[in-house]
């Protein structure tokens, strides 16, 4: 039907926008919620069949933009489209009786368009446009239920998102300038690798994308925002939208050219996030919050590896496929986990055990349980992380497993005898299946190695952190250990309180200042005015005129004599 598969690329972003537009029609809101799964279909098709590395020019749009699907982008695109599709199915059912269907459908589709567009943008301007779209319009999804907690979360999200946008914008400007004004992503990345590149460009980009991807000190929005959204939205937020940040790093970090400072900083922040976030996740009371911290942790892992690659100057061709594969797995698995958490309240007795089992498998896969897809993708990453990084990744299995256990422990209870509806269960199962199967399918094609090349013994030996985790979990359950509790968003609360105090102080100071300015002053006008009146009275006398006539006549004579 479509003659040129490259036309799928524009369609991939325009189609969701069209759906979004339809949601604006009066009364079409709930109808469009039902059509949510349709949004990512062109993108899915594009990821499968569109030609790789063939630019599609869009003359006249923005700064003569273009779209292009690279190999890495295709993985991101395909994974995101899959997740969005199944989340859409889930949402179509989950949100069917929502109060605000039009708003949900509108922003869902717009964010979808932005999210997919990020992966296929060929130039930085359209990239930035899509990034802003996905970044800022996710805000309405976060606050969809309008609960006070969600609103607070949304505000935090928005503030950091805007800061991130600005950092990225400035970073891209610096980068584009460094590349001689070029706006093609490849050219800009090449420009960043040059020694003449502006020293602030890469750090700004890292900060901007890091905010989106939950880089450790900038992650505070993520654990509050992801759980606040409705379940399907949480799934895409954590599964697909954070990947926009990762993809930004993938697209712009000048890999292949050693950049020690930026790379090491990114690596340290990433790896510390890997552990700290998982530990903080342990202390969460809500299952979705735990999952959100787990996302921070896993993204920390990816960014740590990217940082290592950046510092070491690894070739992009080696690093990126591994990163893409990991992102694919994490996106699908995390999406499935969120959907699973959403299923928990509707899973009665027997169903609950099934759900717990499925979640445990997914969790183990995330933690890197041998023979599951997670181990596969992690092994691909370990190859690129150096010895130390590989050790850290191995160790992280412990914390991740603990976090996953925590998630299962705090899973919401269901009323007895509930039965999950098919349209909610199916997406969960489909995503779980995809998460566990797709990496196996793609591993060889992407990395060029056969899966399970290593021998079984070393595999089992490497699993010791997981074993330790299992022991710890068993022990905790046995003694009834209660996890410590931390508020969502850890450092956020204290910061917010201080900001509020400072702004109150500033307002008070301003009020005091304007009061002191308003004090009445004596009026010099009246004093001078009276003098002027007296002077004027003198001039009105004929005598004065006569004298002045003499004076002026004298003055003319005197001046003429000079």
């Amino acid at each position, binding site marked *: 039907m479509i003659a040129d598969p490259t036309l799928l690329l524009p369609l991939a972003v325009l189609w969701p926008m069209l759906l979004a537009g339809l949601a604006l029609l009066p009364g079409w809101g709930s109808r469009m919620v039902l059509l949510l799964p349709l949004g990512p279909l062109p993108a899915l098709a594009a990821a499968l069949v569109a030609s790789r590395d063939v630019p599609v020019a869009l003359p006249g749009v923005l700064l003569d933009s273009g779209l292009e699907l690279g190999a890495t982008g295709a993985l991101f695109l395909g994974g995101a489209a899959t997740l969005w599709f199944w989340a859409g199915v889930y949402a179509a059912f989950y949100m069917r009786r929502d109060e605000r269907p039009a708003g949900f459908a509108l922003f869902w589709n717009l964010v979808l368009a932005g999210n997919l567009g990020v992966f296929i943008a060929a130039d930085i301007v359209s990239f930035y446009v899509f990034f802003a779209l996905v970044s800022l319009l996710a805000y309405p999804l976060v606050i969809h239920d309008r609960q006070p907690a969600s609103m607070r979360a949304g505000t935090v999200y928005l503030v950091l998102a805007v800061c991130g946008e600005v950092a990225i914008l400035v970073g891209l400007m610096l980068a584009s300038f460094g590349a001689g004004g070029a706006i093609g992503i490849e050219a800009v990345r090449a420009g960043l690798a040059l020694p003449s590149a502006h020293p602030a460009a890469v750090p700004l980009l890292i900060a901007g994308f890091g905010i989106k991807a939950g880089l450790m000190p900038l992650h505070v929005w993520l654990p509050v925002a992801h759980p606040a959204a409705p379940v399907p939205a949480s799934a895409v937020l954590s599964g697909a939208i954070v990947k926009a940040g990762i993809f930004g790093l993938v697209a712009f970090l000048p890999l292949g050219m050693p950049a020690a400072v930026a790379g090491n900083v990114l690596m340290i922040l990433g790896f510390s996030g890997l552990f700290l976030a998982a530990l903080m996740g342990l202390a969460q009371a809500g299952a979705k919050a735990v999952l959100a911290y787990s996302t921070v942790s896993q993204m920390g892992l990816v960014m740590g590896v990217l940082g290592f690659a950046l510092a070491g100057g690894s070739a992009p061709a080696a690093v990126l496929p591994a990163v893409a594969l990991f992102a694919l797995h994490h996106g699908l698995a995390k999406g499935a986990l969120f959907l699973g958490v959403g299923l928990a309240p509707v899973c009665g007795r027997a169903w609950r055990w099934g759900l717990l089992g499925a979640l445990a498998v997914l969790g183990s896969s995330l933690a890197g349980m041998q023979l599951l897809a997670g181990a596969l993708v992690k092994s691909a990453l370990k190859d690129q992380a150096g010895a130390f990084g590989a050790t850290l990744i191995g160790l992280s299995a412990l914390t991740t497993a603990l976090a996953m256990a925590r998630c299962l422990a705090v899973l919401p209870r269901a009323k007895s005898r509930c039965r999950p509806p098919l349209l909610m269960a199916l997406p969960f199962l489909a995503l779980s299946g995809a998460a566990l199967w797709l990496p196996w399918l793609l591993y060889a094609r992407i990395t060029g190695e056969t899966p399970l090349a290593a021998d079984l013994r070393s595999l089992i030996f490497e699993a010791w952190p997981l074993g330790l985790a299992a022991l710890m979990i068993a022990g905790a359950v046995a003694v009834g250990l209660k996890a410590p509790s931390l508020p969502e968003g850890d450092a956020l609360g204290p910061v917010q309180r201080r900001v509020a105090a400072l702004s109150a102080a500033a307002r008070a100071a301003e009020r005091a200042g304007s009061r002191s300015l308003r004090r009445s002053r004596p009026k010099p006008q009246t004093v001078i005015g009276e003098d002027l009146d007296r002077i004027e009275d003198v001039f009105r006398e*004929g*005598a004065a005129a*006569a*004298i002045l006539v*003499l004076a002026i006549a004298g003055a003319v004579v005197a001046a003429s004599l000079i």
Partner: protein
Amino acid sequence: MVTGHVYALTGAILAGLGLFAFIILRHPLRQLLAINVVGAGIFLILGGLGRGPDATDPLPQALVITGIVVAVALTAFGAAMIVRLAEARAATNAATRPDGGKPVP
């Protein structure tokens, strides 16, 4: 010293006196008279300086005659205004007096 210069000097003194009077006097009628004295002085100067050694120059004479006509006209006009003003003041005073403001004969 030529006779003309005597006239001119006298005229200058007259003008000066008139000016002095104009400056120190306040009543408009007196001021008007002072100005007439100045005018007379100036005409004397004009006539005196125009008086040549041999023949009388017609120009200053014509000027003096014209000037005197103008001065007379202006003096009359000024005097009329002063009278009018005095009448108006009297009327105002009468109007504000308790006896109802009959014109003063």
